[in-house]
C-alpha cells in the first residue's frame, strides 16, 4: 500500500515537472490531512496548523522543480511542515504566547465529558474514576509540555501520525535506534510523572 502511494506520488511529481500544474492539487489532497495532523500535534493550535500546511505546500510547489526524489514526496513535504512547525513553536514561545491554547480547550472538553458521563450514571464509570482519569490525563499533558522538543516531536509523529520508526528516522534524519531511544525516554518521563502524580515532580534532565 505504501509502495503504491509512493509510486502514485512519483507519477504526480513527474506530471508536475512536465508542466501539468494541476497534478499538484492531487498531491495536496493526498497529504494535507496528514500534515495538518502532525502540525496540530506539534503546535496544539488549529490556525497555526493550517498556516503551516499552507506554507509547506507553497514551498513544495516552488521547490518541486528541483526536487531530486532522494526521499519520497511525502517525507520531503512532511519534513518541510515539521521544520515550519518547529520555527512557529519557537516563535510562539519567544512571543510569550500560550504555547498550547488547546490545553485549556482540552481541559474544558475533559470537564464537559466528565459532566456528560456523570449525567448518565447507568453507563458511566464511577465519578471518582472519571475524575482520576481526567486528572491523570491533565498530568500527562503538563509533563508532555515540558519534554524536550525533539522528544515531543518524535512522540507526536509516533502516537498521532502512527509513523514507523523508519519513517520518523527518515524525517528527523537520524538512525532508527535514536528514534527508538527517544520514544522510550519520552514514555519513561511521562510514566514517572504519572507514578509521582500529586507529589513534587522533578523531570530528570535528558541528554538529547
Amino acid at each position, binding site marked *: 500500500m505504501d509502495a503504491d502511494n509512493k509510486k502514485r506520488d512519483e507519477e504526480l511529481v513527474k506530471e508536475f515537472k512536465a508542466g501539468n500544474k494541476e497534478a*499538484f*492539487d492531487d498531491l*495536496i*489532497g493526498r497529504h*494535507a*490531512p496528514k500534515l*495538518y*495532523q502532525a502540525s*496540530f*500535534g506539534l503546535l*496544539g493550535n*488549529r490556525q497555526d*496548523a*493550517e498556516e503551516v*500546511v*499552507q506554507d509547506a*505546500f*507553497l514551498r513544495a*510547489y516552488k521547490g518541486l522543480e528541483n526536487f531530486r526524489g532522494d526521499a519520497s514526496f511525502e517525507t520531503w513535504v512532511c519534513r518541510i511542515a515539521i521544520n515550519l512547525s518547529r520555527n512557529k513553536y519557537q516563535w510562539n514561545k519567544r512571543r510569550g504566547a500560550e504555547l498550547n491554547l*488547546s*490545553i485549556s480547550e*482540552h481541559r474544558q472538553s475533559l470537564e464537559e465529558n466528565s459532566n456528560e458521563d456523570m449525567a448518565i450514571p447507568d453507563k458511566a464509570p464511577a465519578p471518582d474514576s472519571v475524575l482520576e482519569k481526567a486528572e*491523570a*490525563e491533565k498530568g*500527562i*499533558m503538563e509533563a*508532555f509540555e515540558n519534554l524536550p522538543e525533539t522528544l515531543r516531536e518524535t*512522540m*507526536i509523529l*509516533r*502516537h*498521532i501520525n502512527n509513523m*514507523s*520508526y523508519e519513517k520518523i528516522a527518515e524525517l528527523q534524519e537520524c538512525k532508527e535506534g535514536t528514534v*527508538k*531511544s527517544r*520514544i*522510550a525516554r519520552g*514514555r*519513561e518521563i*511521562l*510514566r514517572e510523572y*504519572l507514578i509521582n502524580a500529586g507529589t513534587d515532580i522533578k523531570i530528570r534532565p535528558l541528554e538529547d
Partner: protein
Amino acid sequence: MKQCPDNEVISAYYDGELDGESPEALHISSCPECAKILESYADMDKALKNKFTCEIPANLTEKVKKTIRRRINAEKRISIPFPVLLLRIAASLFIASVILFYVSSLVKDRETETAASSKPETRKNVSGGLGIIPFEDYVKASFRAPPVSTPLLTAPDTANRTGKIEKSAVLPDKVSQVWVTRNIEKLPSLISTLAAKAGISPANTNITINDGNTANLDMKLSKGQLFNFVRLCKNSGFELLSPQAPQPEQKVQQGTENEDVNYNASFVLGHN
C-alpha cells in the same frame, strides 16, 4: 527470560517494532510487570491522541489549493527581475533629467529676455559685417532663426548712423575701396554732394562711369576729409565691401587729419 527487558525494548514491543518471536517479546507478552508498563503506555497513547488528534477541517484541501494559487499569482505579478527593475529606474531618471533640463533652460531664456529688454543700456555692442547689434540679441538670433528674417538684426540701423566711433585708424597715403550702390546713374551727383559736405574740393574729385554697372572715383583729399566722406557714403545707403580702413565707425588718428591721401573707389551696381 526471567529478568524484564529494559524500557526501550518494552516501548519497541508496544509499537510493534520488536520481532514477536524474540525472547524479549515472549517475556513481555507473559510478564505481569511488563503488562503494567504496557498499560501505562496505552494510557499515554490515549491521552495524547485525545489531546492532539483533531478533526481535519472539511475544506482544508480546497483552502490550501486556493491559498497557493492566490499567493503564486500575487508573486508572479510583483516579481520583476532585478536588472529590469534597475533599467526601469535608470530610464525614468534619464527622462526626468531631460525634462528638467529643458524646462530650466526655457525659464532661463525668459529671464534673460526680460532682463535684456528692461536694461538696454547695459548691453554690449558688437560690430562687424552684421552691423552694430546688441550682443545678446546677436547670440539669440544666431541660435533661433536665420539672421536675415530676424527683426533684431535690422533694428540697429539707427545705431549704425548714430553709433559711436570706437577706434582710430592709421591710413597709408593711398587707399582703395569697393562700394555697392543701388543707382549708378545718379552716382556722380550724389558723390559731388557728399564730397561738398565733407569739404572736398570738386576739382580734386573725378568720377567716371564705365558702363551701366560700374564706376570709378578718384579723389585727392586730407585723411580727416576721407573719414568724413566714408561715413557720409555709408549713411547715404552705400555699402562698403572692403574691410580695410577707413571704416564708417572709425575715426582718424589724431595729428594725421590734414595729411594728404589719394583715394580710389570702385562702385558696383547692386540689386535690391
